[in-house]
């Protein structure tokens, strides 16, 4: 008898994420109906559906219900699960024009069930490698596929592997980089939660190719569900003889282990990650030597991103040619983006390389939620850059994004509209890098801090034209003299906003104005005497008591004392406080 699986995900919640509650409710109802042996209820990471309330996907039928209220659960259980009949009023039909390679199984297989993965031809890729291909041939296959690392820099995966294969070492390691520190990106999380076996299989293939016998999955501690699912998947793989000794009847042996991050973005950088897995401070070290020569515990090591590994298992299964047929000349396959910010349908999208930005933002993302004008999109995370609207026809690929002064990064894609201030955004990203700088090298440690101070000065309305030169000068020092890519890339958001949105900087510095009204220190708050109802709400709420007056004369803000906190503006019920 086949089990029915119900995948639950709250895709849109007004307050708390209700996934867990509804999951529990479902489980309860299933048990009440006596179906617990036939039905399994699972919390899904991502179903590819967004802003449709509570969503349940029933497998193997593939029915999707959206906008489920607690009261609907009974119906679903009694009608669909017990009688195999759809509840038509809840059925959701969404178009899905994306191409799914990395997320091929996400939301389709039960991530906690290895049989599901195997039923979808899982572990056929490693089998093919072990039975039909030598490690060299398998690397050759990757070369043909054109796969490049999805962790950011786009280094050809086959080349990395072949270097590690040829490096001398009595032990070799393979590491999956699941640190995913880029704020606003969660592709790797979804894959780890939704299809952990595809990543494990990718790691097995890598281990086979380079001759590693031990591997680690380094996962952010902030992803407890991913950790749990990966651990379960590892246990199952061991249980099925897919990990451990003499895998699939061959002499190939591999042990995999989960290691947790502990809240340091820089640990995504490969040498820092190695230090972290070794149990040390996650500070990068100079390269060369590269990890492929001297890596974990001093041994040759291959480090790849989660998404990269998920692609690897696909390539070995479906062949390099299939993969290479998708994408552009230099960027093959698909890329998953976490589309967020001021976008209607925020969520994960997987698109073929070469898809123009506009298609992602407008067709898939549904444009800006507010209906306001789109200003730009940021890619590449904190070391990336902004791409203004006029460049939205650019195809997404490693090379094209670089040309625009941004880069692919791990896949954060953040849309900004008129309400966003680009100077403020640049400051935000830089602040992130300053917080996350490991502090080892002076250019990044002090340079980032100084740049942040300059930007704060500008958004506080104390900027001077020469501050822009100071920013450029520090940026140059950081780019050239920082030890790792965090410091080298940290100035990018500033440089790219200065390039595309020079006018905004000019306004902040010369006119002392923030177009978007984000830089509150540049605001002026005034009470409109005609609208004011003399309720005194603002007076009691002003933290510095700078609103004075009486019912007769009306109230006035002492501009000298006002700290621009905006409280008065927020509390006034009569729109009598003007902000400009």
């Amino acid at each position, binding site marked *: 008898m086949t089990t029915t699986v119900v995948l639950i995900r709250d895709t849109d919640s007004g307050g708390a994420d209700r996934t867990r509650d509804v999951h529990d409710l479902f489980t309860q109802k299933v048990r009440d109906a006596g179906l617990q042996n036939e039905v399994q209820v699972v919390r899904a990471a991502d179903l590819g559906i967004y802003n449709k309330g509570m969503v349940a996907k029933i497998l193997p039928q593939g029915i999707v219900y959206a906008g489920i209220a607690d009261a609907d659960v009974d119906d679903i259980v009694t009608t669909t699960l017990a009688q195999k009949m759809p509840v038509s009023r809840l059925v959701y039909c969404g178009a899905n024009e994306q191409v799914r390679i990395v997320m091929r199984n996400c939301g389709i297989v039960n991530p906690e069930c290895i049989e599901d993965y195997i039923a979808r031809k899982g572990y056929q890729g490693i089998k093919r490698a072990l039975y039909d291909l030598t490690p060299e041939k398998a690397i050759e296959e990757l070369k043909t596929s054109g796969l490049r690392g999805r962790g950011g820099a786009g280094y050809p995966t086959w080349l990395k592997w072949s270097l590690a294969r040829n490096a001398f070492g009595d032990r070799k390691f393979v590491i999956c980089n699941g640190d995913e520190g880029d704020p606003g990106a969660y592709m790797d999380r979804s894959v780890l939660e939704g299809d952990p076996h595809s990543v494990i299989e990718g790691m097995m293939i890598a281990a086979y190719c380079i001759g590693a016998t031990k591997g680690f999955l380094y996962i952010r501690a902030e992803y407890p569900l991913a950790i749990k699912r990966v651990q379960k998947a590892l246990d199952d793989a061991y249980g099925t003889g897919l990990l451990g000794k003499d895998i699939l009847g061959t002499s190939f042996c591999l042990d995999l282990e989960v290691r947790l991050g502990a809240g340091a973005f820089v640990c995504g950088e490969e040498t820092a990650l190695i230090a972290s897995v070794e149990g040390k401070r996650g500070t990068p070290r100079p390269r060369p030597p590269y990890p492929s020569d001297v890596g974990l515990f001093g041994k040759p090591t291959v480090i790849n991103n989660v998404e990269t590994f998920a692609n690897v298992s696909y390539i070995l299964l479906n062949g390099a040619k299939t993969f290479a047929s998708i994408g552009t000349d230099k960027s093959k396959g698909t890329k998953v983006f976490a589309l967020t910010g001021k976008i209607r349908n925020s969520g994960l999208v997987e698109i073929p390389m070469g898809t123009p930005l506009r298609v992602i933002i407008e067709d898939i993302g549904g444009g800006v939620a507010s209906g306001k004008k789109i200003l730009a999109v940021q890619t590449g995370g904190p070391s990336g850059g902004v791409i203004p609207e006029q460049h939205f026809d650019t195809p997404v690929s490693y090379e094209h994004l670089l040309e625009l002064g941004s880069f692919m990064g791990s896949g954060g894609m953040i849309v900004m509209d008129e309400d966003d201030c680009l100077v403020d955004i640049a400051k935000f990203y830089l602040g992130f890098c300053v917080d996350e700088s490991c502090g080892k090298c002076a250019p990044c440690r002090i340079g980032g801090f100084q740049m942040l101070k300059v930007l704060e000065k500008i958004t506080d309305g104390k900027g001077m034209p020469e501050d822009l030169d100071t920013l450029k000068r*520090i940026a140059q020092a950081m780019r050239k003299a920082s030890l790792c890519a965090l410091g080298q890339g940290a100035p990018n958001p500033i440089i790219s906003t200065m390039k595309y949105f020079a006018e905004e900087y000019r306004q902040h510095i010369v006119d002392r104005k923030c177009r978007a009204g984000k830089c509150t220190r540049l605001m002026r708050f005034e009470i409109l005497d005609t609208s004011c109802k003399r309720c005194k709400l603002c007076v009691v709420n002003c933290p510095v008591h700078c609103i004075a007056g009486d019912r007769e004369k009306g109230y006035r803000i002492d501009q000298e004392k006002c700290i621009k906190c905006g409280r008065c503006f927020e509390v006034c019920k009569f729109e009598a406080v003007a902000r400009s």
Partner: protein
Amino acid sequence: MVKARINGITVKVPEGTTILDAAHKVQIKIPTLCKHPDLRATGACGVCIVKIKGSQKMVRACCTPLEENMEITTHDPEIVAVRRSVIELILSRHPNECLTCGRNQNCELQKLASDFGVRRESFPQYLPDIKPDTSTGTIVLEPRKCISCGRCITVCQEMQNVWALSMLERGIDTRISPAGDISLADSPCVNCGQCSAHCPTGAIFENDETAKVWQALQDENKYCIVEIAPAVRVAIGEAFGLPLGQNCTGKLYTALRRMGFEAVFDTNFGADVTIVEEAHEFVERFVHKKGALPLITSCCPAWVDFMEKFYPDMIEHFSSCKSPHQIVGVLSKTYYARKKRLDPANAYVVSVMPCTAKKYEIKRSGEMFASGHQDIDVSITTRELGRMIKQAGIDFASLPDEESDHILGEYSGAGTIFGVTGGVMEAALRTAYDYITGGKLKNIDFENVRGLAGVKEGAVPVGSHTVKVAVAHGLRNVEAVLSKVRLAKARGEEPPYHFIEVMACPGGCVGGGGQPYGVTDELRVKRGKGLYKDDEAHTMRYSHENPWVKKVYQDFLGEPLGTKAKELLHAAYKARPEYKK
């Protein structure tokens, strides 16, 4: 070998040579700040960046190996501009306190700023608000002046294996401190001062006690006595531009006398006494089987502290003999004072040491007050003495040589090599050989225990016996030696060694934590050579044959290891916690 071009000049260097070292070969100096020749490169400062043809990036010369056919540019306007920006950034997080800083005119950061002609503060200063740590009385931590180069951390953790210092927090808040922001005095710090000797700035500094010395010299009621350690004489010249490793013993005596000291003694005399006592201890244990073997030297206070904290199970192996300067101190306030009819309360003994740990040693236990007073009133480092000589307006380089004062200033060649690794062992063996065999050793230069290998071992035939010895310097190297001892003990086997010498500082005291800055292995060797030459120049090369040592025993101390000797010249040890908090 790899062949490449640096600024158009062809260089051929062995594989693995850094761009920095290769450039030096062809007379190109690339500025550095965080790299120290003693320590592995960390790449922390970014000052040494250079360009490689064909790459957009700049790489760090101090930690990038030169590769075949590379074309390197070390200086062009862009590189210099980036370097200048980096230096200015570092300065923006560093106080402008050169005038009142101990490193003034001798500071790697200051020199860099000066070389680059930094003339203004391009970036506003934001200084961290961290208080100095003066808790140890030996070294002072001033984290505000720290540029996070990481040298002290590498030194304390890797070179010395003490792990007192750590790099805490991250990003702009990165700072050096003992684990958990306790004071250094509550940490495992053994006061070796190696961190201060390697710090490029004034962030770790010896506790300057020169004012106390000046005050004593001014005080008419005080009778000021000074002694100089072996290693000081071959390093002090560096402060006055004299050739590296030059022996300045005579000039030192003159200078000290001109500064106002009434008696100028030499720690080397104490070293001879130490050897007599220690060699007796050795004979007792080795020949008469009274006491534990191996015997381990105890003249380095940082080592003693280290043992008390990390190897308390070795206490019984330690020679109970005090270190040479303590011996001169206690004899000054007893024997000498009596002879001079001097109230020891008015005697003021200053020891000039290559060492910061001696500042701790002079008060470390009751035995350091054996004369009834604090045997040594203050201990200053070579660096402090250098400054005092300058303050006193003494033109050191041109001084004539004078003699030390009688009796506690007379020493043998064996006494002088105490200042270099292996020296104590060598001196002790010369004497022990004589005691055991009653005959003279033919070749008294023990090449086995000389040189800078971290651990040196040897087997010395002594009559019908073979004495197995080991010498370790730099506390990192202790483990290799002592773990063998521990293992043999645990298994009830013969000890692997009979005699072990340990000096906390790499190279021994010549490389001490209080010596003039810029120590490298090359310099250690030069200073060591200076001492070996001093030894060779002496006709008297056995401690026990020093007639003045004999005389002090005859007149005052009695027998070696006798009651009086035990009372004045020996000390006991006890286990101490690594962390007091």
